[in-house]
């Protein structure tokens, strides 16, 4: 029958495509033990969704409408389903690649445990994806959830998408790194932003900021298109800044140091330890999706100060701290924006109007979180430091007051501090090692990261035993 044959063929082709994705998910079951819980949930859901899609496709040729318009609409539905499965195809392999043998597993587990200690995010799970870019991204778990839910709706699959899954992409090459992976805290921030539905919550506030700060100078925008892109840009800047501040609250200053390192920001310091603004111009420029790097550092420094970290780190002489301090001092007139013709101060004014809301949002969604500063400020951090520089894994250091093992924030920040400032102390203790050699430093940095991972793993076990988990 004309029309039906074409749909039958298309349904069969899509059936085969979906089956290949399902087979890939199923073949990972032998690796089940190596997958974090969240990844297992995710792959299992995709597998079941594939089965339901196949059943839907099997029935497709029987339901072809004879009415011309309905036929056209029905056939296009198959195309939508196919392209939606293209999307699933792109996500499944990076999840499957990121099993625990290719992950800083104890760091991810510790971050997940820390996230779950926040009442809003109790029971959350992280799904890690390996990505090719040397970058980090939260794969907009809400987007994935919505798309998979839409597919489920299309094919009448009633099982709900696993709740509270945060999908986070990390560069495959950094799978064993601890320090760079402090950036995962920012991506967890995106998950938190979505989970709290802050895009909807803050839309009215962003409207007010636009009306107050930008509307009066709207005639300065050179094109209508530019004008129409402003709400998206401000919304995106708001979210990115939220995630930075969330990350600082979650893991402390090591996030800012990792941020500085991945974007090579301390390279903009001159010999006098000041920023040469002329040559650092790209770091002062916002783009349509992200605030300027130096603006982000400025806001992170302010948050570190607000949380009480600043007085603890400001004496550090490392370049990562220096650039943070220099960015904190930058006047707002230093920054520039991607909308030609529009006065830059209107954007700063809009952001200033939103900043209090942003900080409140971070405080709201991290309420109940111990920022880890008291542990860090106590003698415990010195003990952790002494262990590390002697090549000892600091697994058994316990807070005498609480009786709890030293936490993630202290271990991570002390390790980062050694990496930035005290690596030579470690190397000087080892025969034949040169603190000025990039090769030797790399070797012992990796060792330091391995000790950190081991410490985090041990601490998790001790904590679980103590709580009977």
């Amino acid at each position, binding site marked *: 029958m004309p029309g039906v044959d074409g749909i039958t063929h298309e349904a069969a082709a899509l059936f085969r495509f979906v089956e290949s994705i399902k087979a890939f998910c199923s073949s990972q079951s032998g690796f089940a033990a190596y997958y974090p819980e969240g990844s297992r949930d995710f792959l299992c859901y995709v597998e079941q969704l594939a089965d339901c899609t196949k059943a839907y496709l099997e029935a497709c040729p029987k339901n072809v409408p004879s009415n011309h318009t309905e036929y056209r609409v029905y056939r296009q539905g198959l195309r939508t389903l196919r392209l939606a499965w293209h999307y699933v195809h792109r996500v499944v392999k990076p999840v499957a690649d990121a099993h625990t043998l290719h992950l800083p597993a104890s760091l991810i587990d510790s971050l997940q445990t820390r996230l779950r200690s926040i009442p809003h995010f109790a029971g959350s799970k992280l799904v890690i994806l390996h*990505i090719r870019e040397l970058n980090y991204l939260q794969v907009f778990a809400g*987007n994935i959830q*919505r*798309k998979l839910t839409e597919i489920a709706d299309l094919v009448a699959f009633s099982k709900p998408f696993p709740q509270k899954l945060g999908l986070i992409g990390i560069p495959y090459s950094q799978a064993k790194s601890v320090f760079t992976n402090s*950036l995962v805290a920012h991506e967890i921030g995106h998950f938190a932003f979505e989970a709290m539905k802050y895009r909807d919550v803050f*839309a009215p506030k*962003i409207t007010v900021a636009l009306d107050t700060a*930008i509307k009066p100078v709207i005639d300065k925008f050179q094109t209508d298109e530019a004008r129409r892109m402003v709400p998206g840009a401000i919304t995106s800047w708001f979210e990115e800044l939220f995630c930075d501040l969330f990350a600082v609250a979650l893991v402390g200053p090591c996030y800012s140091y990792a941020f500085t390192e991945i974007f090579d920001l301390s390279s903009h310091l001159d010999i006098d330890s000041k920023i040469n603004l002329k040559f650092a111009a790209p770091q002062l420029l916002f783009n349509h999706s992200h605030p300027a790097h130096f603006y982000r550092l400025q806001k992170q420094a302010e948050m570190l100060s607000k949380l009480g970290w600043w007085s603890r780190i400001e004496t550090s002489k490392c370049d990562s701290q220096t650039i943070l301090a220099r960015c904190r001092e930058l006047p707002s007139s230093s920054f520039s924006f991607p909308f030609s013709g529009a006065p830059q101060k209107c954007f700063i004014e809009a952001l200033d109007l939103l900043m209090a809301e942003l900080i409140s949002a971070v405080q709201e969604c991290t309420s109940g979180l111990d920022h880890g500063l008291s542990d860090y400020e106590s003698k415990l951090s010195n003990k952790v430091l002494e262990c590390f520089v002697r090549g000892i894994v600091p697994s058994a250091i316990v807070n005498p007051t609480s009786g709890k093992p030293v936490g993630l924030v202290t271990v991570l920040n002390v390790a980062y501090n050694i990496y930035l400032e005290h690596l030579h102390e470690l190397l000087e203790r080892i025969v034949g090692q040169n603190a000025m050699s990039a090769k030797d430093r790399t070797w012992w940095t990796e060792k330091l990261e391995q000790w950190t991972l081991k410490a985090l793993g041990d601490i998790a076990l001790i904590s679980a035993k103590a709580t009977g988990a």
Partner: protein
Amino acid sequence: MQDAISGGPVYENSDQYLALALASRKALRSLNDYVKQGVFDVELRKIFQEVVSSLKATKDNQNLFGPIPTESPFTNYEQVQTLEEVENEHQDIVNKLSRPLEPYSDEDRRRSEAEPAIEFFYMLENRALHRYSNQIGSGEL
């Protein structure tokens, strides 16, 4: 942290088009239920409202910026641009989507009642799929 530019697991802008296509498909399914069973469901009402409010925001003289991006799949820049293009080919669609579909007992009358919305969402899905496949390169070798 930054957008995946290309080759990564997600492509931020193209995702907006896929979200738009899927939302349009959802509307088309509900419209089909309306035609066949006379049901005008809550989800369809919500989609109509979101489309109308997004298109109105683009024309509102008091609102010089257009809609603020939210969780709705009709509010991001790419989505609004596509919505406006399709709206230009479907005059009066804002008015048609602004009122609920009549609960006629006769299927032919319901089909005729739903026809402008079906044409609109069909075209919206079509345009979004086209842009999505162009961006992810599925049409290229």
